[in-house]
């Protein structure tokens, strides 16, 4: 437990010390909220969709979590390049515990980022009408699940990469599609067949849906499906990530 705790704490310290990283990673969500929220708001309203900012904000919170979580996982590549990975790999601590500590650390950081984006959205004008404290807690649960899922995914991918050259690849072929095809930006009803299918495969869709349901009451799949799919995929990725992580050689 001590080992898991200290690994978790390290992730947290690194995050809290890099002020530029915190501020820098808020730029993109803010831009999306302002540009899309206000830019597409009138069209959305005319089409009968209601307040677009209310619809969009949970998606952007999920985006903030997705980016932070994935990059926390990918940080293993940095640890490998700067040598710190060796220090943890030769320690008499099982790889599973290291993986759990890292994943929880990355997930905690990502949830913090998600909460910051939530308040950012609030500043921009996000006012979900019937948000209660209980529903906010439920939203936190979804934030945490999204965070764990993508930290584990990041870890699994990073275990297979030696250097930062694969980074752009991850960005273009994993992070962006996951985000844009998740229903974070558009409603899922009446989508053309192929897109509808892709959206259903994207695990982030269920995270966004659960988060949106908790925060604003708008839902496509429902809490049961969201929770089941997220928890299932998260468990799968944690196992996969642990396995790949345990195979790392220096």
């Amino acid at each position, binding site marked *: 437990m001590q080992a898991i705790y*200290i690994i978790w704490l390290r992730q947290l310290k*690194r995050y809290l010390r*890099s002020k530029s990283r915190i501020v820098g990673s808020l730029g993109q969500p803010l831009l999306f909220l302002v540009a899309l929220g206000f830019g597409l708001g009138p069209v959305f309203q005319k089409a009968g969709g209601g307040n677009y900012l209310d619809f969009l904000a949970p998606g952007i919170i999920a985006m903030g979590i997705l980016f932070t979580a994935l990059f926390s996982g990918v940080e293993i590549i940095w640890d490998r390049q700067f040598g710190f990975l060796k*220090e943890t790999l030769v320690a*008499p601590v*099982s790889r599973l515990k290291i993986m759990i500590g890292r994943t929880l650390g990355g997930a905690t950081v990502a949830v913090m980022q998600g909460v910051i984006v939530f308040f950012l959205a609030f500043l921009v004008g996000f006012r979900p009408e019937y948000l209660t404290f209980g529903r906010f807690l439920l939203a936190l649960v979804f934030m945490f699940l999204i965070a764990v899922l993508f930290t584990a995914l990041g870890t699994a991918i990073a275990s297979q990469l*030696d250097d930062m050259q694969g980074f752009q690849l991850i960005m273009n072929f994993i992070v962006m599609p996951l985000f844009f095809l998740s229903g974070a930006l558009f409603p899922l009803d009446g989508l053309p067949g192929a897109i509808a299918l892709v959206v259903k495969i994207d695990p982030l869709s269920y995270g966004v849906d659960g988060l949106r349901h908790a925060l604003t009451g708008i839902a496509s799949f429902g809490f049961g499906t969201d929770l089941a799919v997220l928890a299932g995929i998260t468990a799968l990725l944690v196992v996969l990530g642990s396995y790949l992580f345990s195979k790392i050689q*220096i």
Partner: protein
Amino acid sequence: MDIITVKNLVKKFGDLIAVNDVSFSVKRGEIFAFLGPNGAGKSTTIKMLTTILSPTSGEILLDGHNPTHDALQARKSFGIVFQDPSLDDELTAYENVEFHGVLYGIPRETGKERAEQLLKVVELWDRRNELVKNFSGGMKRRLEIARGLLHHPKILFLDEPTQGLDPQTRNHIWSYIQNLNKKEGITIFFTTHYMEEAEKIAERVDVIDHGRIVAEGTPETLKRQTNTTSLEDAFLSLTGHDIRDEGASGADHMRTMSRAWGRH
């Protein structure tokens, strides 16, 4: 009794044979030097001994445990100071040491006492709360050593621990290590390019070159064998005067290439 046994150890990276049928053993409580020119296979061997690289073939036993199949048990028996950096730059010096202490399950009070003692030995105690990224190369090296000596394992691997340090610091560190060896019976397995260091400290020496063991014995035996008066001359007479590739870059480069092409 032997605490480390290595039999017919081989490591290939693609076509490159980094370690070629190496066998040796280290006795419990011994100070053992593993010497060789750059790229001879020292670090690759240490990586295999310390569970972070699996051998192509051959057998290793560390205090009775196989590092490949029984990695966690093997890890409980040793500590290591790596040749290249392994600190977290975003943490302070003290946090790096503390992190190590917790990972190695050192009781809190013992950890605190030793951390203070060791950071004083390497003269970093006054700067313990500074971030490591602001440290110079020598300071980082000293911190690595202090951290590596925090727990008292059965075997301590030191891969060129004193490289780039001034003679004063080297003396401090070696006397601390010799003391550990005497008091706690910790087996010391080290590599170095400072031959006078090896001659002074090592009880037994193995010389590796081109992935093969070329000589084995006490510094005295090696000098007698080669008819020389210092270990440095003995070393040169055993391994020749040619200059080798920088560091382990040859092997590392090959590995990067082979990984890039997906041939693990």
